[in-house]
């Protein structure tokens, strides 16, 4: 077949057709993947909840309380967990923008008396091999069963109780800040979730 001439008409028509086809097929694929994408996001939250909360038989994902944070772009989510209508703990998201390369988002599980049950890192872009060790068992171990009332969520260098990751003090600071923020949200909203009649 002979190549089409580069006349203005040809060029406009060909580009129009290509962009139209591309646009419609992208819209179609977007429709197809909309549901699996939402499901994948939900599955991630549920997996994190399972890791930080004790056994529960309500649906924290449905009963979530979302709080607007004043100075942050992100909102805080509180996932309350109940076992036969007894409050057994809550998972709270915490957020810090002070990571070494951007956002650090955590999910912190608290028992009813405010002890940290466990922490899951939801999102981070820290340096691989240094800051990413915040996901490691060795680092997370120090937070378990600590109450932030007595366990100062600050890096030891800044006068707190948190052992910083080797070579990643900034990442550790962001992590601590996010955890502290989660604890603050938990404290201020504790009454409303423990007392809510079900």
């Amino acid at each position, binding site marked *: 077949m002979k190549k089409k001439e*580069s006349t203005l008409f040809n060029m406009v028509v*060909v580009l129009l057709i290509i962009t139209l086809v591309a646009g419609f097929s992208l819209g179609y*694929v977007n429709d197809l*993947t909309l549901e*699996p*994408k939402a499901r*994948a996001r939900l599955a*991630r939250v549920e997996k994190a909840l399972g890791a930080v909360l004790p056994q529960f038989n309500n649906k924290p994902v449905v009963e979530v309380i979302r709080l607007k944070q004043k100075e942050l772009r992100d909102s805080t989510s509180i996932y309350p967990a109940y076992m036969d209508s007894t409050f057994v703990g809550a998972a709270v998201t915490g957020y810090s923008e002070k990571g070494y390369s951007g956002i650090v988002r955590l999910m912190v599980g608290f028992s009813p008396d405010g002890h940290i049950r466990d922490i899951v890192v939801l999102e981070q872009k820290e340096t691989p091999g*240094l800051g990413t060790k915040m996901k490691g068992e060795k680092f997370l171990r120090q937070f378990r069963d600590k109450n932030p009332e007595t366990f100062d969520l600050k890096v030891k260098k800044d006068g707190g109780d948190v052992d910083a990751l080797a070579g990643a003090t900034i990442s550790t600071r962001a992590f601590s800040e996010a955890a502290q923020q989660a604890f603050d949200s938990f404290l201020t909203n504790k009454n409303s979730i423990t007392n809510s009649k079900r």
Partner: protein
Amino acid sequence: MAKPIDQKQNFLKGLIKENPVFVMLLGMCPTLGVTSSAFNGLGMGVATLFVLLMSNIVVSLIKSQIPNKVRIPAFIVIIASFVTVVEMVLEAYIPFLYEQLGIFIPLIVVNCLILGRAEAFASKNDLASSVVDAVGMGLGFVIALTVLGATREILGNGSLFEFRFVSEEANTLILFILPPGAFIALAYLAILFNRLTQKVA
């Protein structure tokens, strides 16, 4: 083209003689950026292979309909569409990999390897040759990225495909995980690769 292309040669050139990473040094941005582990390298390689294959097929099919003066914007729209498809599919079905690769998925659009093959090969050759070319080049890219990722992961993290062979406390050459390590590892691998292939050729 006057004489038929030797398909075996056409396939192998992407792996060895014109290996996109080690010989032609194309697509350096994803190559250096995502290869901090073997798995990331493999994932990025496969995503690129898919886009390259699809864009080569489409470009080769409609090459006679594209006026010469607007061929680059036409190719870019085609490539960008497939990249967006890859992005959506990854987010829906392999969210783990989607998070790891992050910004580098949309950046496949500007990977000069893909536009380069569309422009230099698919727009001049028939469908079958273009498919073989894309698979050869794509596999060359996958292998290069996986090898580079594996090298950096072994040296920098003491593991391979997340399987650790040193304890978490052990001191590893963290430099290789960091960006400068990417350049160092790539340079030495390129030397090694060219040494080995010189002897063959």
